[in-house]
């Protein structure tokens, strides 16, 4: 426990304290930031888009997880991978790929004369945000589904005559409360600190958010007051996140008890092969709309020599790819891979640590605390880490790793917490009573159940780190450039074709690297239950029947 607190203090507390220190040193600047005329408008914009994004993304991702949960769904493995694809596209090209796909003069406009209304403005920010964040919800809920102890409860409900909808409403969803809560926290905070989308889609509509203001302030921060202003806004985001997440965390705590199933409207039915096909068709349509078309638009832009040139095969060129690769990519790729692997291991280990502490001491607020830095825009967190540790490890890979770990800790913690919450303590007690050592009980009872969530979390971290740009672009030194930094430096900023080529390459690279673990993740989920034949505790059964 003490060790955990020290870790939280060192990784998150100290950098945050250093940022607060910036405000303390310049109270006038901090006051100017919160009293400036646009401040409350930006807060309102940020909160409304983040809330709407969460409301759309979490049930959406959960629905995708449920639709693809059954092994009988046709093309399930491919679907599972395809749903995760938006995670692989670097955020700085997401907005761009959507305007290319569905905006004026975009893909769908040229093809069938249809554009997405409201793409530029809050609607676009919310819809594209939800689509790109839904994979987080999908991941967490999927891991929750894979680890749950109670498919028997669903079976019991069905056997007792509940139809699919009733079972979903009264058994499955209530049992998924913890994963849904975890997913909501992650998605909400990610939507709070999202920058690339509001910048690309909000600016043309004059719609500013906290993050676009932070960017604007930093762009002019050669004046000290504006630097303080940027840090103030960034810390405001942390406050907003904690205000929302902390009560939510308390609310979702201790939800392990399954709720009582209702006994009304019970019509016997079975999910048929037809239903499975319909589920698959729905998910395929979704994948086509939000993944395939935007990525195709991106690829076309990468292959087209210049904007406005018709993207027909006769005009295709690889020149953009050559531009994108003209930097010192090899060393940077090695740095990024090293960082991604170490960060994945460390973040998951640290997530596990918090989960264990929480499981045995209802450690109030610890989960909220490790999420705090997640709400900081990368630039501000990088400043905090640099202020805290820059004197000693500035310019090394270690400081970049430290920033990644501080930022991504909740990615290791939340998915695991959601699953651990589903595990019955009686099981490890049973193992102990039957003579297993404490470690043996963990290894044989708890860890196998956590495996899908562990892999999922590690993969999330790995993918995020691989195309991370903001923090590393501020923290790198001559010997620690990351892939995104080198590639983005190498091209003329804003060169559409090269940017598109870069993201196409990165997507392909990440896809290549992610396929083996993804396949494994899929396999784990297909397997019915890692530790089988645990008897349903009497108490829970009694609650349901």
């Amino acid at each position: 426990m003490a060790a955990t607190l020290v870790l939280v203090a060192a990784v998150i507390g100290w950098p945050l304290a250093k940022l607060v220190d910036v405000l303390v040193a310049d109270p006038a600047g901090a006051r100017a930031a919160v009293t400036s005329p646009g401040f409350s408008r930006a807060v309102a914009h940020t909160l409304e888009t983040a809330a709407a994004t969460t409301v759309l993304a979490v049930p959406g991702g959960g629905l995708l997880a449920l639709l693809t949960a059954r092994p009988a769904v046709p093309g399930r493995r491919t679907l599972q991978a395809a749903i995760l694809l938006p995670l692989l596209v670097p955020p700085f090209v997401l907005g761009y790929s959507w305007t290319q796909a569905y905006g004026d003069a975009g893909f769908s406009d040229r093809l069938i004369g249809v554009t997405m209304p409201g793409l530029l403005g809050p609607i676009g920010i919310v819809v594209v945000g939800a689509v790109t964040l839904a994979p987080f919800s999908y991941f967490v809920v999927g891991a929750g589904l894979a680890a749950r102890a109670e498919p028997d409860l669903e079976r019991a409900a069905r056997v007792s005559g509940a139809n699919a909808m009733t079972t979903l409403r009264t058994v499955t969803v209530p049992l998924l409360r913890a994963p849904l809560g975890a997913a909501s926290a992650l998605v909400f905070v990610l939507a709070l600190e999202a920058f690339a989308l509001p910048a690309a889609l909000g600016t043309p509509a004059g719609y500013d958010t906290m993050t676009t203001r932070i960017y604007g302030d930093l762009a002019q921060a050669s004046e000290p007051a504006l630097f303080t202003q940027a840090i103030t806004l960034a810390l405001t985001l942390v406050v907003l996140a904690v205000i929302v997440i902390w009560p939510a965390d308390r609310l979702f705590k201790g939800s392990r008890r399954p709720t009582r199933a209702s006994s009304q409207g019970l019509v016997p039915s079975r999910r048929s092969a037809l239903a499975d096909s319909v589920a698959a068709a729905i998910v395929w349509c979704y994948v086509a709309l939000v993944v395939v078309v935007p990525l195709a638009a991106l690829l076309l832009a990468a292959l087209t020599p210049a904007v406005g040139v018709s993207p027909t095969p006769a005009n295709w060129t690889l020149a953009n790819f050559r531009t994108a690769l003209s930097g010192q990519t090899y060393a940077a790729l090695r740095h990024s891979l090293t960082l991604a692997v170490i960060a994945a291991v460390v973040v998951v280990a640290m997530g596990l640590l918090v989960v264990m502490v929480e499981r045995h001491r209802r450690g109030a607020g610890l989960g909220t605390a490790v999420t705090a830095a997640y709400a900081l825009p990368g630039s501000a967190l990088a400043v905090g880490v640099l202020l805290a540790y820059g004197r000693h490890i500035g310019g090394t890979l270690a400081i970049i790793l430290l920033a990644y770990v501080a930022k991504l800790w909740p990615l290791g913690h939340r998915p695991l917490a959601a699953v651990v919450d589903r595990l019955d303590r009686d099981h490890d007690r049973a193992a102990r009573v039957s003579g297993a050592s404490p470690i043996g009980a963990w290894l044989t009872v708890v860890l196998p159940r956590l495996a899908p969530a562990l892999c999922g979390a590690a993969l999330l971290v790995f993918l995020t780190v691989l195309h991370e740009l903001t923090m590393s672009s501020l923290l790198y030194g001559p010997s620690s450039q990351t892939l995104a930094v080198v590639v983005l430096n190498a091209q003329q900023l804003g060169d559409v074709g090269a940017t598109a080529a870069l993201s196409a390459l990165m997507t392909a690279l990440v896809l290549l690297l992610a396929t083996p673990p993804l396949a494994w993740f899929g396999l784990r989920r297909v397997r019915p239950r890692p530790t089988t034949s645990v008897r349903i505790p009497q108490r829970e059964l009694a609650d349901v029947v």
Partner: protein
Amino acid sequence: MASFVRRLARVAAGVTLAAMLAAGCASGNIATSAGTANAKATSSDEIMLYTSVSQPTIDAVISAFNAKHPDIKVSVFRAPTGSLNARIATDERIGGLKADVLWVSDPLTMHGYDSQGLLKRYTAPAAKALPAQYRTPSFAGAGLLYLVLVYQKGLSPAPTSWNDLTSAAYQGAAAVPDPGFAGSAMGALGYFGEQQGFGLDFYKKLKSNGGVQVKSPEDVITAVAQGKYKLGMTIADGALAAVKKGSPVKVAWPAPGAIAIYSPIGVTSKSKHAPAAESFEDFVLSKPGQQAIAKTGRQPSLPGVPGIDRPDGAKVVSPDWPAFFGDKAALLAGYQKIFGG
């Protein structure tokens, strides 16, 4: 059980810290090996350059510099303006600026640093050949960006003046970049805001004529090339590169002139390698340095060194940077009342 959890927690914490230390050592090793490699090549001065200028330009200039001064190694930290500002502000708080030379993309940023006392009062010998509006006692323009109009190929009548952005002939068809986002757009605000006959009224008319604000000058080119807008304000290099690659756009040098934004370079006040830093600045501003910049498709600031294509008799205007530095906050607030953001 509880004691077991404590033990396990301690082990996990230990593993985590060990992994981080290992990563630290690993990167430390990389850093030292890079250091020794350089030490082998030369045994003398090393300067640190902080810059937001594009990497190809930086690379070209440094390799030309090293051909003449093989004894001075130039390390580079390159980042977009916002990240560069954050890095400098952070450096200042943890023991002082680590850069010997700053080379940024717009004069306002440099005025900001100068007003904090980060820059040394130094005029490079080569700087004396520059026009007066491109230099101050502590920094000088190493290159120029021209803000011009980009318009759709075949647009009739073709635009000829900045005032065309507010003309009924192009109603709802003009795009401008966001000054809160792009330093170049901020320069345009500086010119129009301070200039008789334009002022913030120019932006009001632009807005009521259906003009749209997009994020960056590059976005203007993209949107015009794709037909979303008919014309817009952008940077000449980018627009000319698009024309060269075959985009269906053309470039106009509007009256009263293209707006010039110079890219200032200066030596820092606390540099421990001032002589080497000064010789670097002097080289960048000298003819061979300027030629290296021109080769990467950028406009040098030294008169007489050929740069990007421009029509005969094309005029250039310049914002009054020191005045704009004083008025910036008010002008930007006024602008944002009109366009939001």
